[in-house]
């Protein structure tokens, strides 16, 4: 797969300097020019210089070009063609039929092109070489989603090729309003970044804001879309993901069709979707493929999982240390009986087991897939049983930690899980200090913080707060059947237009 034409602008240079450089370059002889180009590239091991005819040479990186394309498009048609017949680009086009032939303004620019996988064709008596795009993509092909698997719906996922990722979106949205705005970011990496949206769905102000923020990002390195997250959202220390990260093209398409903006970047299999909202964190891509009532059930399960994941350890502390009376007497007696002989207060119990859980979760990420599952299950069982038998923790605590783990992993999205794992510690600490009052206070503090966040002028807690009834009814806890959703979307657009008119 060929890479797209490079659009990076040259560093600003004064006219005098440019003229001087051009003079110097003109004075170079053919072989000097080839050597200069190789030198500008740093003469790497994969640089190849191939003489095609007298006074014609192709300079390229063997690792970056498509060998077959090179042979068919450049070497075969140009072998033996004398240099004077290639003096102008029109003449070259008679021999080379591939698109993407450009004339760089300097040797430096030509070197940049070679670094991107293009072939530099150095021709005697021409000041600068031609650049012919026969670059290839070295990496994995489109595969199944590894981090967001789904039972129903498409299984393909983005890979590290920007071109292929673009294609995966294009295949799904065959609409001329689908727009890709290309930027080159990262002074050191020169990474291509695409801002993807559907004209007429995403507000122009939002798109402009995203582009402006990306253009002003002064990061020298962009190796993944994650490097751009803080620049786009404008929030640096938020523990909650304000831009959703996904490797599923169907999710990206769904979101941009709802007016959001996606950001793709070269060498990254993850797209960023902005603005993210709180309710998105309880939605999985697969919800769209289930029946509405089934997705309601699954979302309810996730909400319960979220509550358990964040609050179960804190509630355990509340019940066992502060307010046993909130449970029926039998349940309280069971908990207290299970704690007999445990030498620590409940908070230490919780911290020991939470730490063990974090270690197991981290270990399962690092271990190879074929042993990771077994190791964590064995580790969990042995550790839990042994700790309980040694009376280091109570049996009830093992149940609480297991429920916490299951609840956490029921949440969609790795970053989402991590955010709530962090929040769990705040709730646990608050409950340990002030029992139920502390827990409720911490809950309120988190709610207040979430309510204060705006991502690209969109309230993070919308449609819950502020109330947006149409959006709330359409796809929050219940995903309405498609015909109703379409009707509601139409009404939502009318309401928005009316609101705009009123504001005007």
């Amino acid at each position, binding site marked *: 797969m060929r890479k797209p034409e490079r659009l990076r602008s040259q560093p600003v240079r004064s006219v005098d300097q440019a003229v001087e450089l051009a003079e110097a370059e003109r004075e170079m002889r053919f072989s000097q020019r080839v050597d200069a180009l190789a030198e500008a590239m740093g003469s790497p091991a994969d640089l190849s210089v191939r003489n095609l005819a007298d006074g014609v040479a192709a300079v390229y990186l063997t690792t970056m070009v498509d060998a077959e394309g090179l042979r068919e498009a450049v070497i075969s048609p140009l072998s033996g063609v004398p240099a004077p017949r290639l003096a102008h680009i029109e003449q070259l086009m008679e021999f080379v039929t591939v698109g993407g032939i450009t004339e760089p303004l300097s040797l430096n620019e030509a070197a940049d092109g070679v670094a991107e996988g293009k072939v530099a064709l150095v021709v005697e008596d021409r000041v600068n070489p031609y650049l012919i795009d026969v670059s290839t993509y070295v990496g994995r092909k489109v595969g199944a989603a590894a981090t967001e698997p789904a039972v129903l719906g498409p299984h393909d996922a983005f890979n590290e090729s920007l071109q292929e990722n673009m294609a995966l979106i294009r295949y799904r949205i065959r609409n001329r309003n689908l727009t890709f705005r290309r930027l080159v970011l990262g002074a050191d990496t020169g990474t291509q970044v695409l801002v993807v949206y559907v004209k007429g769905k995403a507000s122009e102000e939002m798109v402009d804001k995203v582009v402006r923020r990306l253009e002003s990002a002064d990061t020298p390195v962009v190796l993944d879309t994650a490097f751009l997250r803080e620049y786009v959202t404008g929030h640096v220390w938020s523990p909650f993901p304000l831009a959703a990260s996904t490797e599923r093209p169907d999710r990206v398409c769904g979101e941009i069709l709802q007016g959001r903006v996606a950001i793709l970047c070269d060498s990254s299999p993850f797209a960023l979707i902005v603005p993210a909202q709180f309710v998105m964190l309880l939605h999985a891509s697969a919800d769209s493929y289930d029946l509405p009532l089934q997705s309601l059930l699954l979302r309810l399960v996730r909400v319960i999982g979220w509550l358990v994941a964040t609050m179960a350890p804190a509630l355990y502390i509340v019940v066992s240390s*502060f*307010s046993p*009376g*909130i*449970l*029926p*007497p039998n349940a309280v007696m069971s908990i207290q009986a299970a704690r007999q002989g445990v030498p620590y207060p409940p908070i230490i119990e919780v911290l020991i087991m939470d730490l063990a859980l974090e270690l197991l979760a981290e270990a399962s990420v690092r271990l190879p897939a074929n042993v990771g599952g077994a190791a964590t299950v064995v580790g969990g069982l042995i550790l839990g049983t042994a700790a309980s038998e040694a009376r280091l923790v109570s049996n009830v605590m093992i149940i609480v930690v297991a429920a916490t783990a299951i609840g956490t992993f029921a949440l969609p999205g790795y970053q989402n899980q991590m955010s709530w794992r962090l929040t769990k510690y705040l709730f646990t600490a608050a409950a340990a200090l*002030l*029992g*139920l*009052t*502390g827990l*409720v*206070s911490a809950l*309120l*503090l988190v*709610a*207040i*913080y979430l*309510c*204060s966040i705006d991502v690209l002028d969109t*309230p993070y*807690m919308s449609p*819950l*707060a*502020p*109330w947006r009834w149409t959006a709330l009814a359409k796809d929050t806890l219940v995903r309405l059947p498609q015909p109703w959703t379409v009707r509601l979307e139409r009404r939502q657009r009318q309401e928005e237009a009316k*609101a705009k008119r*009123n*504001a005007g």
Partner: protein
Amino acid sequence: MRDKYLSWPEAAWHIMQVTVCANYLFMPQILYQMAGRSSWVLVFVAALSAFPGAWATYALYARFPTKRLGEYLPEVVGRPMAIVIALFFASYWFGGALIDIVVFAHYVSTTLMHATPMQVLVGVNVLLVLTVGLLGIKTLVRVVDLLLYPIVPFALFVWIWPLFPGELDFSNLFPVRWSDFTEHAFPLGMGLIGMYHGYHGLMLTGPALKGGPKAAAKAMVLGTLAATAAMFAFIAYPLAVFGWPAVTLFSYPGASFIEATAPPTGNFPVRRLDLLTTVFFRFVMMIAAVTYFSLCVHAIADTTEALWPSAGSRARGFIAVLAAVAIQAVSYVFRGLSAVLELVKIWMPLSTVAVLLTAALALAARFRGVKEGAGNGE
């Protein structure tokens, strides 16, 4: 131009919540003491008494739809009086925030956290209120919106459940006697004028309201009527459950009433309902206390900014922190619930004065013909 982000149903919900929350924790007990068995009738009388104050707030909003109280005061009454009136309103709202924070801390102390020092409980409440105060009005409005989801199911449970187990005996509400009202006629009358004053929230959120004066009128009328219905349940239900005079024996009749009407089975998962009531009362405290606190901070900051533009823009955060520290410090004085109720007795007449002052401001604005964009020269 200011961002219009508040719809009228949101404004109505805010007004209702502030009204209910401002009264819920202590008003039932005060009314039982002053009007006995007939106190529930006063819920409706107070709604009628609220409308002059609501009209005055509406009239001021209609004249200054993009300004808060502190911003238009200098135009209505001139600079020196603006400072005096702003300080009065700020003190009144400061008192409201203080009472809510301290009453809730006492409630938590007597029901859940006996061993925790009162200052810690007050400090936690102050932290919450200050956080919202610093994050701004938009955050306040969203927090109020968000509280719809826990409050509505809880309120429905509290109102609908008791109708089924047959704990409510509405004959306990009767007979209503005229003499019940005449004994404390003056303080009752004064108290009723200021009882439903949640519409003051519009002095804070008005500039954000979409739809102009018509939306403001809808929000104030519906918010106050909804608060009336809620207060009726909170005052009449405990009376119906416990009867007269037993209802006066409870410190928090609402909470006791919930316990009395909870499902009688021992296996009911949350038998004592501490979790629900504590969570609920925390939300209750939050809305009123945060609104009072923000009103207080903005009354000072906006007036300062209107009079001294260079100083005012930086003042809000400083004033918020100062007010929070002041609440924490003043709360040392109120060492028992009875001390807080003494403060309430001072604050209730202030509430009446605030309503009358609002009406006076509306009339002054009308007679002086000042309104936004009219080039009033201040």
